Structure formats: structure tokens, C-alpha cells
């Protein structure tokens, strides 16, 4: 679906124009995620190599008790989703009807988990070179990944003008259904993993990283997408309280710390965070200053609560992390929003980065990931600081160019 086809009326054009700062903010998050991750490979880059470090003990840059600079990126990305979620859903609802919009967004959330699962499958394939043996679930997910890749190829072929539209639709459905299936399987096995760890002290499947956490949070927050602001506030608070009780009870915090971002159970905390973000978005669209006030209060309450609820911990999605993550992301966004009025130039790299985040993730994973994986240590891990810096600058320029080309292209493949 082309962007110009969707943007048929003036209202939507105005909406898009209005949220330029959100695009810029999302782009900033994606750029930080990818570039920080890349720089992490160069051990001689000093503090630059520690930007992506989540652990203070390993040199992570601490900004608040228990929280490193890298910890804010994921909540900030979730915040960017929260800012546009309701707006984007309403757009779909207007264009294709409520049922289709619900189906699309439900599928989309599962597909995001599916993409994360696919990236994990790729990692496991690489692990087989080191002796890792596939289990049944790995084989099933690999098979589904292959089907998904074939569907992707078909979708790419659909970009050729002569291709029949009906086949394009079929390819798109196969792609979505495959990714959704992978998403559902991932949710089930990660939940099994959580209880397996509880019972036996070890996980079986281990398939949960950032994208899965984001997709699951969208699923949790989805019922509130059209809710009034106070319903969002109430819903998020209730989920947050329930999650906090679970998190603080017994050894649950330690259990939640094992899977990335707390696994599916932690996903409820991330979901609460996304609903809070959506609530702040509602306030933002009523009055920009409300977003600043609520974000500052969230952050203050989060830091204040560290005295009783413990440190800000990304790993277990601790309650204080959820509050501070929401508030701090909101504050950073407010800075972007405040700077928006000064931005007049068409040169807008953050907007380019923000337009195709999933594709940028995939490119980073395959291109940059392969580069750092297969290059000798003398070029990457043990490279002199200047050599690391050059590679970092080249990577930024290269990825920004790709982001620019993708954003310029009116045809895109999106989830």
C-alpha cells in the first residue's frame, strides 16, 4: 500500500504533519538502538563502546540507580509506538473499517513477535556451527521462517508493475499468517520457559528479545487503543499494580530477570507502560504541556519509588523501570517536540530513520551483524580507536543513506 494512496484527505495530511516530531523521535530511537549496538563491538572506543551496555558492572553508563543509558532506548521506542498507535488505528479504521483495523493490528503485533522470532532462528542457525542441536520447536520455527522468506520474496516480486494484484494479496497474507504463527508459538514457548525456569532452574527454548517484548506489549495495550484517556489511565494502573505485586512477591523478581525483558509475564509490565504512553499521547494531543507535566511526574514518582520498590531494572521490567521508562521517554520526546519549531530544513535524517524501523532492524541484523561476526578481531574487537571510529561513522552514513532511500521510495514493505 503506497503512502500517497492512503493519504487521501486533508485531515490525514494534517495529522501526518502534526506528528513530525514523533517520526523524528522514533528515528532517534532506532538510530541509537542500531548504532549503539554496532559500536559495542569495538572494545577500544572508550565510552562509545559502552553506550549499548545494560549492565553497570560491565561499564554501562549509569544515569539513575540501576539504570544505564542503553536502558532508556527500548522504552523510548515503545513510547514512540504509543504516541501514534491510536492515531494510526483510527486511520485504518476510517479507511478499511473496524473489523479490518482490529485484524490488521492484531496480526501486526503478532508479526512483530514473529520477526523477532525469525531473527532468533537465524541466531540459532549460526549457533549450530558451534555445536547447538535443534529441538522440535527450532525445526518448526525454521520451517515457518523459510515459508515467511518465500512469501517475502513474492511480496518483493509484487513490486514489479506487471505482477497480478491478487497474487500480491495472497503473498502478503501468507507472509502475515506465517509471522503471526511464529509469534503465537513464541508466546507459548516463552511462557513455558518461564515456568520451566521456575520448576527446574533452566529454560528450554529461549526465544525472547526486544522485538518480541514490543509486539507483546502492543497485544496487551491493544484493547485500550480507542479507550478514553481516563480508561487508559485506569487500565494501565490496574495492570501496573497487578504486575508490581507479582514482581515484588517472593523471588519473582529473580525469575523475571532471566528471560530478556521479563519474558511474557514481564510483557504485561511493558504493556502497562505502552498504555501509559498512549495516555500521555492523548494528553499531548489535547495540550502539549500536559505531556511534559505527566512525563515529569511519572519520572519523579518512579525515582521516588526506588526507595520501596527497588532499583530501576530493565531485566525484570521492574515497576520503577516502567515508571521511569515512561516518564524519561516522555521528557526526551518533549525535548524533540520543543526543538521541532527550529527545524526548517528538508535534511531530516531522524525522520528517515523513523519511517521504516523494522526494515532498518533487519538490515542492521543481517548486514552489520554479519560484518561484525565474520570480520577478524584486528578490524573489529581489537581495532584501534580511530579505526573503530571510522567504521562507526561509515556505518552511520551507510545506514542513513539506506534509511533516506527507503523513506524517499513511495513503495514500501511494512508490517
Amino acid at each position: 500500500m503506497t503512502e500517497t494512496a492512503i493519504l487521501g484527505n486533508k485531515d490525514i495530511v494534517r495529522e501526518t504533519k502534526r506528528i513530525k516530531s514523533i517520526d523524528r523521535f522514533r528515528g532517534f530511537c532506532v538510530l541509537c538502538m542500531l548504532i549503539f549496538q554496532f559500536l559495542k563491538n569495538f572494545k577500544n572506543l572508550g565510552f562509545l563502546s559502552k553506550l549499548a551496555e545494560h549492565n553497570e558492572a560491565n561499564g554501562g553508563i549509569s544515569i539513575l540507580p540501576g539504570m544505564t543509558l542503553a536502558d532508556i532506548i527500548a522504552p523510548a521506542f515503545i513510547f514512540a509506538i504509543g504516541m501514534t498507535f491510536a492515531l494510526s488505528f483510527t486511520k485504518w479504521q476510517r479507511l478499511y473499517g473496524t473489523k479490518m483495523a482490529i485484524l490488521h493490528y492484531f496480526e501486526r503485533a503478532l508479526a512483530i513477535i514473529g520477526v523477532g522470532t525469525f531473527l532468533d532462528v537465524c541466531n540459532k542457525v549460526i549457533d549450530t556451527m558451534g555445536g547447538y542441536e535443534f529441538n522440535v520447536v527450532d525445526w518448526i520455527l525454521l520451517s515457518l521462517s523459510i515459508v515467511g522468506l518465500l512469501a517475502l520474496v513474492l511480496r518483493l516480486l509484487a513490486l514489479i508493475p506487471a505482477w497480478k494484484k491478487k497474487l500480491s494479496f495472497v503473498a502478503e497474507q501468507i507472509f502475515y499468517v506465517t509471522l503471526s504463527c511464529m509469534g503465537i508459538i513464541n508466546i507459548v514457548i516463552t511462557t513455558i520457559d518461564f515456568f520451566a525456569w521456575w520448576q527446574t532452574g533452566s529454560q528450554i527454548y529461549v526465544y525472547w528479545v526486544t522485538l518480541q517484548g514490543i509486539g507483546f506489549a502492543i497485544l496487551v495495550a491493544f484493547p485500550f487503543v480507542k479507550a478514553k484517556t481516563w480508561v487508559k489511565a485506569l487500565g494501565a494502573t490496574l495492570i501496573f499494580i497487578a504486575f508490581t505485586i507479582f514482581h515484588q512477591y517472593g523471588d519473582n523478581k529473580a525469575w523475571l530477570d532471566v528471560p530478556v525483558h521479563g519474558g511474557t509475564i514481564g510483557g504485561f509490565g511493558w504493556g502497562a507502560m505502552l498504555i501509559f504512553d498512549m495516555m500521555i499521547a492523548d494528553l499531548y494531543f489535547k495540550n502539549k504541556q500536559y505531556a511534559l507535566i505527566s512525563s515529569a511526574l511519572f519520572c519523579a514518582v518512579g525515582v521516588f519509588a526506588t526507595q520501596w520498590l527497588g532499583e530501576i531494572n530493565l531485566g525484570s521490567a521492574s515497576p520503577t523501570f516502567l515508571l521511569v521508562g515512561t516518564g524519561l521517554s516522555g521528557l526526551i520526546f518533549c525535548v524533540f517536540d520543543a526543538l521541532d519549531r527550529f527545524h526548517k530544513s528538508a535534511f531530516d535524517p531522524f525522520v528517515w530513520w523513523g519511517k521504516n524501523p523494522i526494515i532498518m532492524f533487519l538490515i542492521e541484523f543481517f548486514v552489520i551483524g554479519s560484518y561484525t561476526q565474520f570480520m577478524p578481531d584486528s578490524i573489529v574487537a581489537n581495532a584501534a580507536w580511530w579505526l573503530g571510529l571510522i567504521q562507526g561513522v561509515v556505518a552511520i552514513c551507510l545506514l542513513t543513506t539506506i534509511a533516506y532511500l527507503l523513506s524517499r521510495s513511495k513503495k514500501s514493505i511494512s508490517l
Partner: protein
Amino acid sequence: MKKEKNVETVENEQAVETKNVAEKETKTQSTNAAVKSERILSIDRFRGICMFLMVCSFILPFFGAFEFLEPYMSHANKEGVGGFQILPGVAFADLFAAMFIFVIGLTTVRSFKSREAKVGTKRAYWQFALRGLALIGVGSLLNGLEDGWGSMLEGDKFQDLRLNQKIFAVLFVVAIAVVLFAIVVSFIKSDKLHQIARTVLVYFLAACGLIGLYSLCVSMGAQYPGAQPDKFGGWMWDTLQNIGLAILLALPFVKFDKIGKLVIVFVTFAVITVVEQNGLLDYAGKILEGGLIGGFSWAGILLLGSVFAEMKGENRYWILTSLMLLVSVVMIVAYDVAARKRGATPVYATFCASVSAIVWGLLNYLNNWKPRFDFFAIWGSNPILTYVVNYLIQLLAGMFISEALFGLTAWAAVPIVIGLLALYTLGNWLLKRYNKYIRI
């Protein structure tokens, strides 16, 4: 005929215009009056909450039955330990002194402007300075009663007292004479005599305040940088003196606009934070509320109160509140910047001012709710008198019946406390009803 008609029309138009102007003026006056009464209501309620909690925190510790409340009524010590801690170094009870000064700040600008309109700028400054000094004076005289006469009742001789205790013990007797003179004069129907009695009382209190301030400066100088022999007489510094000093230090900036005040406050806070973090806190913490050093933070709270009063009803009110809360909490919790009431560190002041702003901001939403019996508004109507009466009751109870009170069971303690609070409420209600306000 036509001319007459024209004249009539013009007259009619003028009459209509005059009527409109009159209506507009009446409308404006009533709007202003409404705004004024609305603002006073929320401020009175806030002040009442502070006074009520202060009185409770003075009375309840006398009764063993309320010992379980002790953590909520105890202040943190100069190391920041003690009481129910809501932030590292800040006990729950530490909030209320700052809140009270914040409330003073809420009315300061309005009060100064109205005084300025009546007597001119220079005289308004002079009267406010006198008010600040007089508060220090009242506090010092009460200390003269407690530390001077209290010690002598317990067996000390006059010559055993410290120099400033001697001075204020004597001045306390003179104060009684001055107050009695004012009371006697009040029965004589002469405005001139009333004016003279009032002037004598205010100037006397201000002179006592000046002596108290001098005493503070000498004591602080004598003890700097470390503990030295107490040559002059040690500290005589309490809540009222602190409020008076805050008014004096804030006074030069009272006519600044919002931005000017904020710049002054936060630059001062930044400087004090740096020096206190680098060793001055130990020294400032020796004296209640930080003495002269802490005075700058208390004055900052007062000025912040005046800024918030000017921002009432604006979004910027909540922006400033939330940002101040965030910055103070992050500095205290995440970066270990010392927060102490004792020493009045700027982060403590910022935190308390933001909490006060939240409370007052919420109370403002209740301004349209006007019950006939407005409990906290009643309690907030005569704060100085309530404070002085409470101080005297606390002093007398402490000297004569503290052991007996502490041994009472809950069945006996609860009715006594309720009775006492009811008496306070009744006293304040009667004074409010008959428009009797004790002000300096």
C-alpha cells in the same frame, strides 16, 4: 424640537454608557472579590492543614498512647536519620515547616502590593522588614521564657544563664508590660493611643528581633569553622525566628517578576548546594533550620510560594511543579545530594516547595466548595496566635504534667486530645467569626 431630541438622545446614550461602565465596574469588582476570596480560601485551608498538623505533632508526643505515631511526628536529625523517611534524609514531619513558609509566600506578593498601594513602596518595604524582625523577636522572647525562666523554675540561678538567655528573659518581662499596656489602651476610645500602643509593640518586638538576629550572627561566627567554646551564649533559634529571617531575606526580591525570582532562587540554591556538599552542611546542621545559611533556602521557599501564587491557574504552574519535583527527587535519590531540614539544604527546599505546590494546586480545585463549617480554613485564620498559644501550652505541659500525661491510657488520652483540638477549633472559629485576626 430636533435639537431637544438630539440632546435627549445624547443624554440617554451617556446614561446608558454610564450604566454600562457602572455595571462593568461592579462586575469587575465582584469578579475581583470572587477571585480574592477564592484564593484566600485555598490558602487559608492550606495554612490550616499546616497548623493542624503542627499542633498535633506538638500535642500527641505527650501521650504514651500515641507512641506508635512517633515516627510520623519526628524530624530527621542533622545526619538525616530518624522519623518516617519519605526520602533519604527527609522525614514526613520535615515537610510541614517548609509548607508553612510556602503558604506565607503565597500571600506575600498580594500583601506587599496592597500595602504598597496604601503607604507607598518605601514604607511597605519598611513595614515588611519590621514584620520579619518582629517575628524573630516573638520567637526570641518565647525562647527567653522557655530557656530563661524555664531554667530558673527548674533551679538554675539568673547568673548561671547564658548571656542571650539573660537578655531575653529580661526582655520577656518587658514584653509582658508592653502587651499589657497595649491591652489596657485598647479599652480607651482613642485612635491616637491605639496607634501609639501598636507602634510601641511592633518596634519593641522588632528591636528584640534585631537583638535575636545579632545573637545568631555572633553565635554562628563564634562557632565557625569547628566546635569552639561557647563564649557568647550559643543558639537561640526556633521556628518563628526562621520564618522572620526568611521574610527578611526574601524581601529585596519581592517586587521581581516570576522569572527574576526563579533565577535568584535557583542561582542561590546552586551556590548553597555546592558549598554545603563541600563541607558547610555539617556547620549549618548544628543549628535548627540551618540558621543564617539555611535562611537562604527558607527564603527561597517563600519566594517560590510567591511565584506559584502568580502562576495559579496556568499550565506553567504544573510544569514548574513537576520539574522541581523531578529534579529534587533525582538529585536526592539518584545522586546522593544531601537533603536535610536541619541545615535546610536546597534540594530539601525544592522538594518541599514542589510537594507544597502539589497540595495547594489540588486545594485550588476545591475553591468552589464552600461549606459553612470549613475546618481547615478556620484553623488557618490565626496562625501566629495559634502558634504562640500552642507553644505556651506545650511549655507548661512539658514543665508540669508531662509524666502524668505520658502514663495515661488511650481511653483517657483520646478524649483529652480531641477536647484540646476542639478548643483550638472553637477559639479559631470565634476569632474568625468576629473578624479578629492577630497580625504583626
